[in-house]
């Protein structure tokens, strides 16, 4: 009889130890190891341009109207001038669009365009899609921003 209890106790103990180890591993693992591609520089969908997208003043602040810079280069590295740019986007996981209508407001030279009126009103995964028309043709690019 005593030996049965001993095995039950041992079993319980080992089960608890195992559960503890699993929990410890689970809790210390980095969350959401995979997610959307958040690179700030990439080729446009058809490879016409290389686009980079950065906040103009370095930091992204939730809930504030901010300006970003979209820099457009050709595959050969030459700045793309005179591009017509439209901006759209939203939150794919919430099925809603952007809370503002950002626009390309200024050309700053060297392929750099100011995209003003960007506001991220909540944390999570945002997408900004740029439709670009220039002498070389039309192309588009999507940037993911995760707050």
């Amino acid at each position: 009889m005593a030996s049965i209890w001993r095995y039950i106790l041992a079993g319980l103990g080992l089960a608890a130890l195992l559960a503890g180890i699993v929990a410890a591993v689970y809790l210390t693992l980095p969350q959401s190891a995979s997610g959307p591609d958040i690179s700030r520089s990439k080729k446009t969908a058809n490879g016409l341009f290389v686009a980079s997208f950065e906040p103009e003043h370095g930091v992204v602040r939730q809930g504030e109207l901010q300006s970003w810079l979209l820099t457009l280069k050709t595959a050969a590295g030459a700045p793309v001038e005179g591009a017509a740019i439209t901006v759209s986007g939203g939150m794919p996981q919430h099925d809603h669009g952007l809370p503002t209508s950002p626009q390309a407001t200024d050309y700053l030279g060297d392929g750099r365009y100011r995209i003003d009126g960007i506001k991220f009103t909540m944390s999570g995964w945002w997408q900004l899609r740029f439709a670009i028309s220039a002498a070389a043709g039309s192309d588009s690019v999507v940037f993911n921003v995760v707050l």
Partner: protein
Amino acid sequence: MKRLISVVSLFALAVLALLGGCGEPRFSDAEKKAIASLALNTLPSLKPDTTNQYADVPAAAALGSTLFFDAGMSRDGTVSCSTCHKIDRQFQDDLPQAVGVGRTNRRTMPLAGVARNPWFFWDGRRDSLWAQALTPLENPLEQAGNRAAFAHYIKKRFGERYERIFGPLPDLSTVPANASPLDSDAERAAWNAMPAGQQDDVNRVYANIGKAIAAFERSIEPAQTRFDRFAIDLATGAKPEEDAAFSPEEILGLKLFIGKANCVSCHNGPRFTDNSFHNNGVPPVDGLPLDRGRVDAVAQVEADPFNCLGKFRDGDEGACRELRFMVKDGPQIMRAYKTPSLRGAADRPPYMHAGQFATLDEVVAHYSKAPLAVEGVSEVHPLDLSERERAALVAFLKTLSE
């Protein structure tokens, strides 16, 4: 052997207990970050309003305070701003729809932190606090006055105070007693008969009335609550004492708020609002006029002569980016209404833009069920919260009022 097994078992149980969160409330790092972002101590200091050069002029705030409480600022001398924005009731009136000279179709909004809003009214049909303050003054259901009458009234009652702040009043001797581009046919005709320069003069006085009232309203700010004391203790690692300690139900409610129930998606930041507009499927009220929310407000704010791009703005146009970059069309603005702050909400039923829900229980039940919108598409998805979870959310919301 038996002793070894016992020791191992006890150790394992202790580890499990620690990880399982017995005893002290446990929050993940992400939860702690979310809670800290809601605390009032993260509220930045109020930014200057460059569109209103009198925004931080004490004499303007003092005059604005007088005007705010003055029932003389209405057609029949019975309604002031404070009729609906009651000072002892969080500057709201506890009614499903505000009642001025007549009954309106919208719930009075409280004013704590109002100067921090980019948009005003439930639908954002005004883009500055001073432009907002002018709107009820001429609304036939609210103060029901007209701008010519207000200009005369200011000159008669507060002329000296006005001139000390804003400079000389214009010559109003030939301005009709009642005239406005908005009101009755007679008043519109009187307005249209005025020379453009005289219209400008009256509009200038009228804009200054709004700027004085806005200067006063900038002083109305949210106060610290039990939640804020809890959040500060959590952030600093101090053990919450007395009323800063949350009950298990309040902790569950907080975890749901920032987690499974997704409330924090829109009710974020220290004011619990994203300052944006959403269709959340709240049904219209029978008997009220058609109300499509933001979709109609866009045209109204663009047409408002007192908007940021108009000539009564002080400072430069750089302050007008909210108006410049606003969303003007698309399905998302149909029946979209502003996310209200939740601070103090538990003490001010009823809820929603036309007082549709009498209690917080009804509000939470609505989000849990997430009915389809009557028009447009609701952004809310069913949460299927249990009764215990719904009660916990309400318990947490009450900590924002204590």
